[in-house]
């Protein structure tokens, strides 16, 4: 099975690249911040707390997003192997062997990528520490002490999460008898798993709880940054929770949009695909929700803080640094959400190559196919923006209330539309790019669509 797995890897460069990029960047970022925490143990007393906060807060919330990105990418890739594993099983592979193929592949790619990421982090951690010292956030009394312990632990966690995600994905890919699997491989209609519903509800509830605590307790605290400690993470947690329920939201919103789209050919294809295969396209919706929720929530909070800092005071003089940390966090999260959107768009569209080819043979023009892909992505982006903005209120509204600006913040209200526009461009652009990449290679020669026929 290992030999088959390695051979199979060479035939699936897109899937390998998607997993590799997510794991590599994820390990590099997470481990860089982990070295700060490791250094903090032996740090000068003046520095220990701030290093723990930076490493823990940025690293911690970044880790949640990174792990979500890695898990969703590996999960998508593993699940899409349904047809291949069904074929292997009809040839005599046991479900266990077929699952082993998927898991070994994911583990090998994750191991190599995590090793590369760890290497980058062992340099990146020192660079980060140096930057903090230059910015006089950390004093000269403390030395960089990030070593293999934090880097290797982080890499191991990322590899573990990737492997677990592959195990879950592979179970889906090998469910049911082999013959049925081969026929049904095209449309794995499936409900949201119960543990996913539970996880989503728990996350959304804890985001709501943070919001309530912010309004009722920490917002009234004399420490001006107590409210931020409780509300800052609410949009991240709520966003990830809402993203976990993405297939359900897609079904809920795509159905009423359907009649509008069905008026013309490309819209008909988009509408049918959106309503009939929410589980496939939800892979694109989840990251959009996380992106919009965290970016809008955090940026609005930073804006409110900047406007009201004078009124609420900043006795410890940490305001600028906290703003910087928040911006770094938004940057990390946006980067990973963007990677996830692109990864899932490429995976979803590339997976549909034979289906697009079939529709073309039946009589859809290439313009219609392209338009249907763009429309799907547009609808997904719109739903993601609505849900994401909902999630962002978990941070924005309580913090705005805590700082006496009321439910709606007093300024910089162009932030949400700006983030929404960027998310829309990113989603549609990623899907369009994936579509062009899928058909472009064939388009260059005549006779796109002949790959299912025997070579002449």
């Amino acid at each position: 099975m290992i030999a088959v797995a390695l051979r199979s890897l060479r035939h699936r460069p897109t899937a390998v690249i998607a997993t590799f990029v997510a794991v590599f960047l994820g390990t590099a970022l997470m481990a860089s911040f982990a070295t700060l925490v490791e250094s903090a143990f032996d740090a000068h007393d003046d520095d220990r707390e701030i290093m723990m906060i930076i490493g823990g807060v940025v690293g911690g919330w970044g880790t949640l997003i990174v792990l979500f990105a890695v898990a969703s990418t590996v999960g998508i890739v593993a699940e899409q192997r349904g047809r291949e594993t069904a074929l292997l099983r009809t040839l005599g592979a046991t479900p266990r062997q077929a699952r082993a193929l998927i898991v070994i592949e994911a583990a090998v790619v994750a191991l190599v990528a995590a090793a590369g990421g760890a290497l980058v982090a062992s340099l990146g951690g020192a660079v980060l520490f140096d930057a903090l010292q230059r910015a006089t956030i950390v004093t000269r009394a403390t030395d960089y002490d990030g070593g293999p312990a934090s880097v290797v632990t982080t890499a191991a966690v990322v590899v573990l999460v990737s492997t677990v995600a592959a195990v879950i994905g592979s179970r889906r890919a090998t469910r049911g008898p082999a013959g049925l699997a081969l026929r049904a491989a095209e449309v794995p209609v499936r409900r949201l798993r119960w543990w996913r519903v539970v996880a989503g509800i728990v996350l959304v509830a804890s985001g709501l709880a943070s919001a309530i605590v912010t309004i009722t307790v920490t917002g009234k605290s004399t420490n001006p940054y107590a409210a931020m400690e409780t509300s800052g993470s609410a949009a991240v947690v709520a966003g990830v929770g809402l993203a976990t329920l993405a297939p359900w939201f897609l079904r809920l919103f795509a159905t009423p949009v359907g009649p509008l789209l069905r008026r013309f050919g490309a819209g008909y294809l988009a509408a049918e695909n959106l309503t009939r295969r929410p589980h496939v396209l939800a892979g694109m919706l989840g990251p959009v929700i996380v992106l919009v929720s965290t970016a809008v929530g955090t940026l609005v909070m930073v804006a409110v803080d900047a406007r009201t800092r004078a009124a609420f005071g900043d006795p410890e003089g940490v305001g600028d640094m906290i703003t910087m940390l928040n911006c770094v966090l938004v940057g990390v999260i946006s980067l990973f959400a963007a990677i996830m959107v692109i990864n899932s768009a490429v995976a979803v569209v590339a997976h549909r190559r034979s289906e697009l080819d079939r529709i073309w043979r039946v009589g859809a023009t290439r313009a219609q196919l392209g338009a249907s892909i763009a429309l799907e992505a547009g609808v997904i982006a719109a739903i993601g923006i609505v849900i994401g903005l909902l999630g962002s209120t978990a941070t924005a509204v309580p913090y705005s209330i805590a700082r006496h600006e009321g439910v709606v913040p007093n300024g910089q209200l162009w932030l949400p539309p700006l983030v929404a526009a960027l998310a829309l461009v990113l989603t549609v652009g990623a899907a369009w790019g994936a579509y062009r990449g899928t058909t472009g290679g064939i388009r260059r020669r005549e006779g796109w669509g002949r790959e299912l026929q025997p070579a002449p």
Partner: protein
Amino acid sequence: MSMPNVSGMAHDTPALAVEGLRKRHGSGPGAVDALVGIDLAFARGTFTAIMGPSGSGKSTFLACVAGLDRPTAGRILLDGVDVTDWDETARTRMRRDRIGFVFQDFSLIPYLTAAENVALPARLAGRRLPPETVREALARVGLADRADHLPSALSGGQQQRVAIARALVTQPAVLLADEPTGALDSATAREVLGMLRAAVDDLGQTTVMVTHDPVAASYADTVVFLVDGRVAGQMAKPNADAVAAQLAHLDQLVGVAK
């Protein structure tokens, strides 16, 4: 694409004709000549089988005629109209509106029901077929009670019958079938072939079918044999044994013509 009015056309205009059709795959020393000058005319209401050994150009011929592939030289006339130089979009519209295609792999869209698959080409053309038209098309292939099933809930033979209903529902000038029984067992294959035959007899549907199966070919009015991209003979009112004998003979000719 506006097509000339059929009633205003001489009745002997072939539904489909090709003149000097050539197709070269690739270029330079590695180029392969799949078709080297084919002249054929398919009269209205006839059922023609195209046969030949592997690599004889059968599938390339069908792909060129359907506008899936562009010939290197020669003309393709659909209902007397030269469609050879039409661009990709025009050829797609032609395929959607004027040609019915049945593929070996059925080519059904997995997330659409049988009825929706049948109505898809019209949908893509921006039209909605009346529900009774779709129902009749499915009833004609004996699947009236399967209209709301997804392809994954249908057997291979049923899926191919849905594909036939889809190909016939727009009343195309010509029905093209590429190894339509290639993925079916022999009993199911006979059912599907009987339906193609019925479309010719009852609806006057001009049909061209590529196959390697002598039994399938025996359902046609005429068999055209291809060898090395050329027409190597025809047989009227074929029976399976005669076709098989002729094929065995042609296998020995492969490569000799070059």
